[in-house]
């Protein structure tokens, strides 16, 4: 945010802050390591608010759980903002000093009274008011979110709505206060940092900037296209239009992880050529023309970067099995086969080249990473200690560019509820499993809840179904059958499925691939469904 894609805060700050808001995040299950830091914070006295349609195991730790209707996040945050402004609790000095666009923003949230907030979100006005007052008056506060915010057709607006709150209360850029999008995989942050984004070079440097491109071109010895690449949803469109004919998939299982799986299968099968590079023979790999066996954790040298922007060394403990090789070697081999004279650099050589180009990582030599137990970017020079929290500049005399407010409006989820599809189905993760189960499904877990659809006790009673009974779940795109699990964390009209079991209960047969034009993320979190009990026969 404000130009760099990373959480502003350190884990240590989670442990010492006064207030933690977990918004659209069941970190207790989906980000358990991060949540340990949250728990330390709670144990140290931090108060916690949870904003989530479900009263998840994370929300059960909260002082107040706000059970919003799916996709009403912007209405809630705008109502919180209006209440803060009307109660004169906004941080006038900070707003004046470091932000831009407050007046227009204040005007945009004006229609979002507590009453309207309650009407749209379902959350009682008193609870919205409490969140507003406690967030605005806390000495320090962390606002954390994950896919409950970003897996919507208006994901970027959702994120902006939260950033607005932090600017309004002055909860960013100082120790203990920040904005934290928690990362899922151990190295999701590192992937983005390295430029695995369509419009960014390593270190979040813009592809559109000719000077930056030139810097990379001089070292890489080849021209970089000035046009940004496509994010995944644009790739889907390009596949549909026949423009994109070949795909190189590294460490992903899009056949099962993308919304509207039927469409995805058609797209992948329609390609001329697909390469999958993975440590497992995934369902996507089964469709590939070429499968390159990659090396896994413990079999490679390199770095991982955590949600607190901490780059840490990872070391090779064993040789990769069979023909598997690490990704650097595989990519170099492919390049050589394509006729380029690429050597296979060591992980450290590749890293040193990268940090010579990325100011964020400039000072992070391997010896330093090893000695310090990891460093947090930005760390531009060898004598820079790394950065505990981002955007401290906003509190300094010279703020640099002002942090802008963005007025955003609430719009409902695309997949509307009606009489035919009256139940809101949302998706998520469980503690024992990871994404499509490629990695986690291969071993048994005593905690595993297999492919089921979770229903509220009230809906279960209405349908006359109990735990284990089979139901048919239909959306406007497809239908699947699944056993029922009654879950008290759900209210009537709200159902939940985990994404981990595409082979038996493939929830993405149901989900909608409407996607956010700014981030390219699909609306996994809001599907309209109909549920029918299957008569035993």
């Amino acid at each position, binding site marked *: 945010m404000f130009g760099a894609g990373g959480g502003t805060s350190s884990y240590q700050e989670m442990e010492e802050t006064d207030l933690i808001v977990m918004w659209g995040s069941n970190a207790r299950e989906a980000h358990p390591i991060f949540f340990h830091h949250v728990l330390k914070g*709670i144990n140290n006295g931090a108060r916690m608010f949870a904003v989530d349609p479900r009263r998840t195991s994370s929300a*059960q730790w909260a002082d*107040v759980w706000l*059970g919003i209707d799916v996709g009403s996040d912007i209405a809630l945050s705008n109502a919180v903002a209006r209440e803060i402004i009307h109660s004169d609790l906004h941080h006038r000095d900070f707003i004046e000093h470091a932000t831009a666009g407050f007046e227009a923003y204040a005007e945009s949230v004006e229609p979002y009274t507590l009453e309207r907030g309650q009407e749209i979100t379902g959350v009682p006005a008193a609870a919205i008011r409490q969140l507003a007052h406690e967030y605005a008056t806390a000495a320090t506060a962390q606002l954390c979110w994950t896919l409950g915010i970003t897996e919507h057709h208006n994901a970027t607006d959702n994120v902006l709505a939260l950033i607005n709150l932090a600017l309004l209360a002055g909860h960013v850029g100082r120790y203990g206060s920040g904005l934290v999008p928690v990362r899922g995989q151990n190295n999701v942050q590192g992937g983005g940092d390295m430029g695995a984004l369509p419009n960014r070079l390593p270190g979040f440097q813009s592809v559109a900037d000719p000077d930056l491109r030139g810097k990379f071109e001089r070292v890489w010895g080849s021209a970089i296209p000035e046009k940004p690449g496509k994010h995944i949803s644009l790739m889907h469109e390009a596949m549909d239009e026949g423009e994109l004919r070949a795909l190189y998939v590294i460490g992903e299982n899009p056949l099962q992880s993308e919304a509207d799986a039927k469409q995805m299968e058609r797209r992948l099968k329609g390609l001329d050529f697909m390469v999958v590079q993975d440590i497992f023979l995934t369902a996507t790999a089964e469709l590939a023309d070429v499968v390159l066996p990659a090396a896994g954790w413990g079999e490679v040298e390199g770095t991982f970067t955590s949600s607190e922007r901490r780059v840490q060394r990872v070391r090779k403990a064993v040789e990769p099995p069979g023909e598997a090789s690490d990704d650097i070697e595989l990519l170099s081999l492919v390049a050589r086969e394509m006729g380029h004279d690429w050597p296979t650099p060591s992980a450290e050589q590749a890293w040193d080249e990268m940090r010579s180009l990325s100011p964020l990582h400039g000072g992070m030599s391997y010896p330093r990473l090893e000695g310090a137990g990891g460093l947090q970017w930005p760390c531009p020079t060898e004598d820079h200690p790394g950065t505990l929290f981002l955007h401290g500049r906003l509190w300094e005399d010279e703020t640099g560019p002002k942090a802008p407010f963005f007025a955003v409006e609430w719009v409902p989820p695309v997949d509307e509820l009606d009489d035919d599809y009256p139940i809101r189905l949302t998706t998520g993760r469980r503690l024992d499993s990871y994404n499509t189960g490629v990695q986690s499904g291969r071993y048994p877990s005593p905690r595993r809840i297999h492919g089921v659809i979770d229903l509220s006790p009230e809906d279960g009673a209405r349908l006359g179904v109990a735990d284990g009974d089979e139901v048919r779940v239909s959306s406007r795109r497809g239908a699947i059958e699944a056993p029922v699990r009654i879950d008290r964390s759900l209210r009537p009209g709200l159902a939940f499925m985990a994404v981990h079991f595409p082979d038996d209960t493939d929830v993405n047969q149901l989900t909608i691939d409407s996607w956010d034009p700014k981030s390219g993320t699909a609306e996994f979190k809001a599907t309209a469904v109909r549920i029918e009990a299957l008569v035993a026969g």
Partner: protein
Amino acid sequence: MDIRALLDRPTADERDAVDAVLGEPASAWEGGAFSPLDGHVAYGGHATRARRHLLLPALHAVQDAVGSVSRGALGYISERLTVPPAEAYGVASFYALISTMPRAETLIHVCDDIVCMQYGAGELMAAVEHALGPPGATGQLSWAPSPCLGQCDRAPAALSHAAGRGYANHAPAAADSLSGVEFDELPIGLIRQDPSQLRLLRHIGVVDPTSLDDYIDTGGYADLRRAIDMGRESVLAALDASGLRGRGGAAFPIGLKWRGVAEARGDEKYVIANGDESEPGTFKDRILMEGDPFAVVEAMTIAGFATGAGKGFIYVRGEYPVAERRLRHAIDLAGEAGLLGDDVAGAGFGFELEVRRGAGAYICGEETALFASIEGLRGEPRQKPPFPVESGVFGKPTSINNIETLVAVLAVLEMGADAFAAIGTERSKGPKLFCISGAVSFPGLYEVPFGTSLRELITMAGGIRDGGEVGAVLVGGAAGSFVDRSNLDMQLTFEGAAEARTGLGSGAIIVFDDATDFAPVLRRIAQFFRDESCGQCVPCRIGTVRQEEALARITADRMLGGMSDERERLDDLARVMTDASICGLGQTASSAVQSAIRLRLRGAPW
């Protein structure tokens, strides 16, 4: 947290019992009826977890109402307090008086400890078993053996618990009176000394323990007034000058302790009266709490004033129902009279007092275990430091004092520090209570100046009954050490006891005559420690079991190797437990056995 709720539901009676302690559930999330708002908001977190200390009271409430704690009741309590059911079960099953299995509607706990066994407890149990069958049956009425019930002055003892009616003591207990359990309160233990000559016991049997007026008419609450007039600093100075040291066993100077809390940082501080008197052979605090409850309340109020603590707990042993009732009543009356509350006696300070009931766990007499018990955790001791004056109950500065110590504070204020310090010896000052039980003619509670000899005390208690001779005396209860006839002239002081290689401990003096076979006595003591070890630290958890096994082998003549091998094993265990246990329980679990060996008592493994 991270609750995986039990599916079992509570019965209406169980639910009512829990709600009586915790209040009606505020939402479906706490077990109330579902309302649409519950689907959109829930409150919990710190506020709910802060009620964890109500876990044991809620368990008691269910147990009192229906006789045991079912899975449904446990699940409901867990849900209300956001405690994982497994953890709540860990707490419930920690306590001997809480039953997590169905049990008889009325259960009689019959004492089979070392004093009662001298008074026919063996015959009593045989008769009870003949009438009721083997222990632990379900149905209307059953029984179970129990460690010391603190009624050694009128052994043999029993304690009954009836669903819906609560606890009642029976002492001396007879088999025929137990089958139709009566719930009349027993008279307070008889004091054989002239009350006018006593400082600590002078109200016992003289002042009506249920009447605040009677207490005030006989000079009660003059000490609180005195303390308020003196001011906090002068009270602390007087306690320093008096030389008063704690009477619970550790003999810590009370002035130092109170000053520690008074000077500790923070506004939230606590004072606790430790009435979890569970040391076998000890009953002094019971008699004080039953016979002079207002004195305990008054002394606690002074403790609050002097330390700056706004809240006090009196933790009463679960086996002492009369003491609990009298203290609750006394607190109610004191509150109504403005002697507790926001503005105590119009003196501008606030003090709240609450009674907490133990549930059958010797270890909870250990101060840090007692904190854990109040907090709703298993009663497991904590490492010290930090000491309670910095981090006690709820992690806040806490002064925890024995009941006798608190009553002695009143004596200091009334007599003046100098007069108090003039009683006793140079290093052990003031009057002291001793509980003499066992083979004496008149077992009971005696108040003597520090420095009285063991022989004099036995003489006061009428000497050895039936004209026998002293065989040995166990000083300090099960955690103490034996002394033999050669030490009868030992001075009953902290220093005199140390000289005789024992400790005064809780003031229990258990006398055995010269016909005693000590083998079953040692075995019972070893069994006691095995049962009462909280299991937290290895030396004690394993050591107490191994000690008892060795004694059992010796008794059964099935020794591993010879006597010297078993002795060596016992010595090793003793050293490990003494050196490496976290708390006093493990550190003293071998002392009686070791002293019996050293003194070559009859039946001891020497």
